């Protein structure tokens, strides 16, 4: 089936994964379980990565920088043709939300495992997305159209009410954005945002949006087939973020009751239908303290945090994406979907929480995964693997499930304690302190919590200075003993090999 809006569905038996890391592994596993043959692509940095070794076939696509490998549409399509792959799964990031790529797949008679190109296009343009979903009855954050002049915006701001955000149409990553709390600061803020947007993006068009304070980031997972059916799989709470990067997600949300869930779900389905959406997608909302919710954006792809929804619904979203792309009808209706238990995900990043969260590179020397009841790990790295600066710093996801939120939290605590990654610094200590914190346990947090009210010092409560001192003294002592043995060795008449193996034994 091929639609006008760039949707092609048909049965396929071989699929190319245009991605790497844990999400490539996730998709490979789903294919494996459905009996679909797999094709991996890899840059020079990834020859030994798990996704290459786990796939049935693997093709080299270029140098480590993504723009020379994972982002090069022609190379990906070329390999799909050479390998006979009939479908491509883009994962997240890289080409996942590039309408031109989705269309190029279809033009080459390759199934794109995702929505039609037209839906990606609309949802990728902030203003068009806002207008489209607003027309479908979806509440959006009050604000102005873009392109007003300064006087018009100043007038509009009075109507919207302060605080407001000045935002650049072309903006992203906080650039060209200004929070304004008082009317008298608005003219300067508009001018500043325009200047910044012009220099960063070559476009000085800005607009106003009401600033939602104490907001939570809550999103609705959707699944839609090519036959007009769409369901929501409940919500995810993703308020714990730092610099717009989510760090901990959970399902369900502490603040969403069944009534709110149904209302948000219905609105999310309406938004998806407004763009003839097909396959998995997510509508992100801001929810204020009075439980008003506002459309933020739609992610037209599989999300990093999809596992928490899988655990509480029992639905394998990665497998369902493949079924939908093959043209199958959804196997369940809205009434079949039950939320059972509680799931929490911690994103494990190669970064140093004790040093301003600086990314950490290096070779993983040891990785001991937590296991046992209620623990799932999605990872795409292994001991011996080198964390390079080329790709994003998320190296693993730790997901815990329990009958209740309390049980899930307790399992997360013990799983974090069991997890050992050495060779690079990770943010595991951040998660450990967070899941012990009173705020997290009582669900009292919003999107600004991590940046404004959380500190690694929170862990100071129970300090084990004495024990740390003993560890260090004993390690220093042992090191000193070894050093003196190394110095003494010159005098000995043993072969180096013998000596080396003795030293190895000593170290053990």
């Amino acid at each position, binding site marked *: 089936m091929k639609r006008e809006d760039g949707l092609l569905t048909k049965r396929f038996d071989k699929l190319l994964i245009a991605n790497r890391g844990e999400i490539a592994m996730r998709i490979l596993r789903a294919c494996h379980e459905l009996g679909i043959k797999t094709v991996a692509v890899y840059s020079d940095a990834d020859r030994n990565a798990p996704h290459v070794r786990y796939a049935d076939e693997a093709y080299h696509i270029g140098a480590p920088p993504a723009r020379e490998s994972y982002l090069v549409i022609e190379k990906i399509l070329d390999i799909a043709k050479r390998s006979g792959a009939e479908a491509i799964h883009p994962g997240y990031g890289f080409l996942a939300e590039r309408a031109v790529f989705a269309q190029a797949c279809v033009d080459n008679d390759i199934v794109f495992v995702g929505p039609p190109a037209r839906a990606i296009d609309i949802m990728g343009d902030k203003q068009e997305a806002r207008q489209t979903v607003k027309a479908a009855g979806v509440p959006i954050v009050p604000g102005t159209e873009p392109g007003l002049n300064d006087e018009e915006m100043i007038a509009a701001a009075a109507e919207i009410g302060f605080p407001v955000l000045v935002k650049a149409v072309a903006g992203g990553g906080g650039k060209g954005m200004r929070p304004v709390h008082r009317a008298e600061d608005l003219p300067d803020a508009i001018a500043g945002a325009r200047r910044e947007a012009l220099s960063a993006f070559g476009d000085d068009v800005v607009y106003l949006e009401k600033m939602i304070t104490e907001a939570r980031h809550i999103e609705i997972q959707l699944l839609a087939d090519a036959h007009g059916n769409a369901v929501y799989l409940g919500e995810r709470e993703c308020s714990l973020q730092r610099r717009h990067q989510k760090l901990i997600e959970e399902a369900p949300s502490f603040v969403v009751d069944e009534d709110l869930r149904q209302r948000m779900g219905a609105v999310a389905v309406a938004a998806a239908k407004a763009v003839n959406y097909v396959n998995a997608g997510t509508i992100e909302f801001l929810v204020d303290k009075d439980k008003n919710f506002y459309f933020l954006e739609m992610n037209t792809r599989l999300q990093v945090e999809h596992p928490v929804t899988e655990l509480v619904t029992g639905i394998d979203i990665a497998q369902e994406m493949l079924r939908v792309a093959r043209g199958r009808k959804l196997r369940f209706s809205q009434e079949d979907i039950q939320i059972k238990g509680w799931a929490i995900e911690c994103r494990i990043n190669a970064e140093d929480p004790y040093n301003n969260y600086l990314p950490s590179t290096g070779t993983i020397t040891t990785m001991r995964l937590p296991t046992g009841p209620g623990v799932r790990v999605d990872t795409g790295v292994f001991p011996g693997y080198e964390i390079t600066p080329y790709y994003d710093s998320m190296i693993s996801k730790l997901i815990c499930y329990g009958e209740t939120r309390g049980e899930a939290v307790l399992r997360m605590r013990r799983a974090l304690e069991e997890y050992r990654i050495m060779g690079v610094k990770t943010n595991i200590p951040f998660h450990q302190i967070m899941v012990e914190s009173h705020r997290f346990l009582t669900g009292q947090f919003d999107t600004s919590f991590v940046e404004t009210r959380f500190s690694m010092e929170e862990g100071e409560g129970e300090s084990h*200075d004495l024990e740390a001192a003993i560890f*260090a003294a004993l390690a*220093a002592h042992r090191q000193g003993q070894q050093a003196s043995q190394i110095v003494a060795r010159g005098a000995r008449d043993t072969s180096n090999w013998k000596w080396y193996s003795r030293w190895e034994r000593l170290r053990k």
Partner: protein
Amino acid sequence: MKYYTKVNNQEYEIEIDHEHEITVNGEKYVIDFQQLPDAGLASLLINNQSLEAVVEDQDESWEVLMMGKLYTVKVQDERTYRLALARGLSADSGEGEVKAPMPGIIIAVPAVVGNVVKQGDKVIILESMKMENELRAPRDGIITQVKVTTGASVEKDQVLIVISDPETGD
């Protein structure tokens, strides 16, 4: 062997009597210390309390990551400790170099030669892993060298900025 340790401003005098017994500030502890095959990981039983930590040698001190907390422990053996006392040197002389903690590209260089900076001031912005990272001054001082410019690719541990003590020029 006797060791002088300092962590979070607590000082402990640790005497390692033999393999299974130590004395800390005069109090005896029965211990069993095992370095595990995973580099840096160690298991310790202190009076039968079981603890595990990642212990790493960081030139001037030891980093101990235990139960989600990082401890920086200074350890000196008796000789070093006495020498330091005799010389009257502060053991806490700050580092003067800002090094790249990972490979990346320099996005901005707020630091200017001759400027006075305070510890924690932003001196370099480095992009790596799709993220901008702020590197900060490790100590108070005057910026005496800026070795990179915006757009430069840098290797891990490359020296980017040198900060000297305004008094000693150190």
